[in-house]
């Protein structure tokens, strides 16, 4: 990066860096909880997690926190993720492969439509 001369250049750095900083700040629009218990990881939750983060990043969504949690108690449908948007009932999706993770983010988070075929539970666990 060369010398900065304008407000635009300054803004650009700010936005770029903010994406990084925001990831770790609380107070977001909602969160995606990826179950990373032992069996979740065995079922591929790490790839799911990676896909979640990548998709959010691709779509420039920075107001959703990605949180890892322990076992949700739904081993048979792992990997599972919970999508909890502020003011809405949390939804748990099961069998979330990386492809499904992408689908969920695009549909649920961006368009506000639940992905009914993957829902395993509504409301608090």
């Amino acid at each position: 990066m060369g010398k900065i001369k304008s407000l635009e250049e300054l803004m650009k750095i700010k936005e770029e860096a903010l994406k990084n900083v925001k990831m770790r700040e609380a107070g977001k629009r909602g969160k995606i909880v990826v179950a990373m218990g032992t069996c979740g990881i065995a079922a591929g939750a790490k790839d799911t997690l990676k896909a979640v983060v990548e998709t959010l990043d691709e779509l420039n969504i920075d107001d959703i926190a990605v949180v890892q949690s322990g076992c949700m108690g739904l081993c048979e449908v792992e990997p599972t993720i919970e999508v909890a948007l502020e003011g809405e009932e949390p939804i748990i999706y099961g069998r979330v492969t990386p492809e499904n993770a992408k689908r969920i983010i695009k549909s649920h988070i961006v368009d506000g439509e639940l992905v009914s075929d993957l829902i395993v539970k509504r409301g608090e666990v």
Partner: protein
Amino acid sequence: MPLTTNTILICAGGACVSAGEESVKDALERKLKEYNLQDIVKIVETGCMGACSLGPIMVIYPEGVYYQKLTPEVAEKIVEEHILKGRIVKSHLYKGEKGEVIPQPQEEVAFFSRQVKIATRNVGVINPLDIDEYIARDGYFALHKALKEMTPEEVIQVIKDSGLRGRGGAGFPTGLKWEFARKSPGDKKYMICNADEGDPGAFMDRSILEGDPHSIIEAMTIAGYAIGAQKGFVYVRAEYPIAIERLTEALKQAREYGFLGENILGTDFSFDIEIRIGAGAFVCGEETALMHSIEGKRGQPRVKPPFPAQKGLWGNPSNINNVETLSCVPPIIFHGPQWFKQWGTEKSPGTKVFALAGKVKNTGLVEVPMGITLRELIYEIGGGSPTGKKIKAVQTGGPSGGVIPAEYFDTPVDFESLTSLGAIIGSGGMIVLDEDDCMVDVAKFFLEFTVDESCGKCTPCREGTKKMYEILDKITNGEGTEEDLETLEQLAYIIKDSSLCGLGQTAPNPVLSTLKYYREEYLAHVREGKCPAKKCKELISYVIDPEKCVGCTACARVCPVSCISGEVRKVHTIDQEACIRCGSCIEVCRFGAISKVTPAVSVEVEE
């Protein structure tokens, strides 16, 4: 862009580093690697988070969970439990004021929630070695605004309107000082940052330099523009190597981005900053001594006027500001003076950083709005006494300050109120004292410091403080007289009136203020040979209550001079002549049979 799911902010402030932060970080890194998480979990070292007594500490985002008192083993466990499985490791959660577990984001932890962070806004939040993170939090936007949208006079007016006053001790209006320097004739001018921070117990300046070095660079450049300087100096003490290292790196980054050097931000304003390392004498923090030191001369104060704004570095107009003062400047320029004035009081707007120490639960750095009461500061933020003992007073302002008794704890903390009580805000040291603290001893502690630090240029300060120290020593040894108290007061006023610099002028304050509020404690020492706080060794004895002693022998076994005698299951006794009053025995007696008494049990009478 790196994919991060969790970010671990680990405090790399001085206290946490010496508590073993590095080995904790190593352990985290090792464990993360083991689980192949090193790419998605980011570790950031920050400046002091303010809870030093509980260090090393860290926060895990996005959850915002604080962990305290870390060890490498705990760090490994946190990776396995928290990061991998999302289970909070309860045993090392940050403890709030009631000692309960608070697994909540930053906003809700009591110690943090009452604070308003302006000067320390980025400390503990950003990576101090990454200029982009500073920019992400509006860093260098104020510089842009000042240079491109404002004239130097307008910049000065904004600072004047904000009411910002110097945080280095005297509370002089910053905008006014800038104006003097601007109007002072001369082509060459200098902008100096005072990062000497010699006050024992204060470390807010270090923490800002370590945790947010760019805020000082930005502020100095804005100030340089305002007063018409081409060059700046940061005067840091050599004892602050981490601050020096991070500031050096930050200067490099700022030059790369064109925030320092020729034609800053494409304007025709050019300015650069150099670091000067001081030897760490307290008196070198005094502005004229500091400038002598930068010039390569002996760091001794000189008579004022002329003030630095008239004749400063190498005879040129100069402006000198404290670190904390400067770190308030960029947000004031960015948000405007009214924004700053929403906190604080009419005459003392904004916030102040305090270093809470002594007999409070939460010790560390806190930034609070001016005008908060001492009670709120000590009980709500500080969490009150850790032992349940009665808090007696607070000492503010370090060696230039004084004590404020608990009766006055509803006083708002601002420049005028504390001064009217005979104490000062000073650099923001706050030592909480309880019933175990002897006021004569407290005064002696600070006097000892000033005796050591007096530069020796003027006789009243050099000889007078030594004489005062000797008298205090005599009193704590039980050899003082009432005349001594009078001499003490006389000396105090002479030193105050006839010393050349602030060190001598304020050195008697700890004595005068303790004499003002706690004369009866002094009198107890000189009249009755009593130390009411049972602190002064010569005036107390350790005694065993024969009614309570069960003869467990525990005390006799720990006594380093073997002066406790007695048989198993028989009452023990202490040989007063041999006892060195180390206090070990009182700690091990589980039956409460040992106590301290004052005055000391007289040995001679028994002979």
